[in-house]
């Protein structure tokens, strides 16, 4: 699969998903606004690159948070 998929949905896709998946009515302006915002998120995610395959959601994050002892005021 190409690295940039699944990209951010278009306004038309957002509108279709709203209706088909959630039964929500979105007007064109809101769908366009949401699609633009999701495209901004997507650009940020693309800039971060792909995480290594062996990184599970949340596991490394928690491991790193807990890696140190509780830090007193002067602990470097």
């Amino acid at each position, binding site marked *: 699969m190409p690295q940039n998929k699944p990209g951010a949905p278009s306004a038309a896709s957002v509108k279709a998903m709203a209706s088909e998946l959630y039964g929500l009515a979105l007007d064109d302006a809101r769908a366009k606004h949401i699609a633009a915002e999701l495209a901004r998120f*997507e650009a940020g*995610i693309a800039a971060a690159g792909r995480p290594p395959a062996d990184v599970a959601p949340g596991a490394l994050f928690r491991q790193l948070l807990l890696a140190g002892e509780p830090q007193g005021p002067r602990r470097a």
Partner: protein
Amino acid sequence: MTDLAELTLAATADGIRARKFSSWEVTQACLARISAWQKHTNAFLAVDHGGALKAAARADALNVRGAASGVLHGVPLAHKDIFGRANTLVSIGSKIPDKPSTETATVLARLDAAGAIELGALNMDEFAGGFSGHNAHFGDCRNPWKPDRVPGGSSSGSAAAVAARMVMGALGTDTGGSVRMPAHFCGVVGLRPTYGRVSRHGAFPRAWSLDTVGPLARTAEDAALLLQAIAGEDPLDSAAENVAVVDYRSGLTQPIAGIRVGVPKDVYFTSIDAGIASLLEASRAVLAKLGAVLVEIELPDPEPLTALGLTVARPEAASLHFDWIAARPGDYSPSIREAIESGFYIPATRYIDALRQRGVMLKRWLDTAFDKVELLHLPVFGSPTPTLAECAPTGPSPATAVGFGRFTWPFAFLGLPSIAVPVGFQQDGMPAAMQLVGRPFAEAMLLNAAHLYQRETGWHQKAPPLPK
């Protein structure tokens, strides 16, 4: 005699314990402040005059018998209306909730155990979903320094009430900046603890993976006392970690000589308003005078962190609100609803990738930034304080809101502790703050540096003048 409402939380707690004055007197003083300020700020959603005075009288009776319950005995507080209190309806800044809470949030229970008194419920952005202090259902919260300016959000009432000396301290929640942003705009201290430092049980979520509960107070010492009372593991919140809680207050006066403070040279952090940049520069000079070593540092790109954070937050909010959005869409403000709804359209693969990136990014920051410094020194917000009208969801220039969260979201995504500390006033008289960010569970160091800074400066002693 000094107006007791002007005392810090720490001085109030010490004074009550030593019986220099009573909890009842302090509570009366705070209630008088609320009477004077409420119509100008709309910081409170509800005030419990009678209940607060009864609780204060009980606290005084216990104190006379030498039975003070804890470090906050008899101290009047109030909190963002997002924390459950058994048999009490919590609004979450919305008209949708219609059932009283069945249990009390862990943080409120811990404050109760420490002897604190609750004066009422504080205003907030609807469902903690904004940074400006707007609330279409209960009225906007206004900044006590200038009522046309944003107080910041979503813990808007918490910051406004502390700034105007209506309460000694307050709790807020910070998902992407909702404690630090209002602290900056209102000129108070706001601490976002490490993810997992404080239990969220009983606090209505915004995004489970990012939510934190933190104190807003006038001083770092006050924030230390509040954090001391609420921090620690909780079997009712599986994310509240079993990490020892150090004595935050006792560490406040340790010298910070030799502590390395990173000052980023990246344009991301330096392209800010000249007035705020000047205040931040002056604050760095104070830290240097205290012996901190300022280190110019190149940081990893912070830009993706906000996008990643929102890619986690939006689907979690959408999941949380799914039933209400379907059943009562008209009961949400359009902008709040749209932000929540956007989470419906983020693919699950992207959400999972963002969660996977969290550890990768934290490792990168720990390895390339926090291996060189103990603290980072950053802005909280980089532009002059906007007006409520400028940031209104339907206002003339919603683009003003673009800068909200720019400097706070990245560290929320990384789960790192960060503190907003007032550093003076902009040309227009509005306060501004620096943001110090530390390594995981380095709250003691943040509070230590902030406390010594405040001892040197005194910005925290300035309060907005009482309304006429």
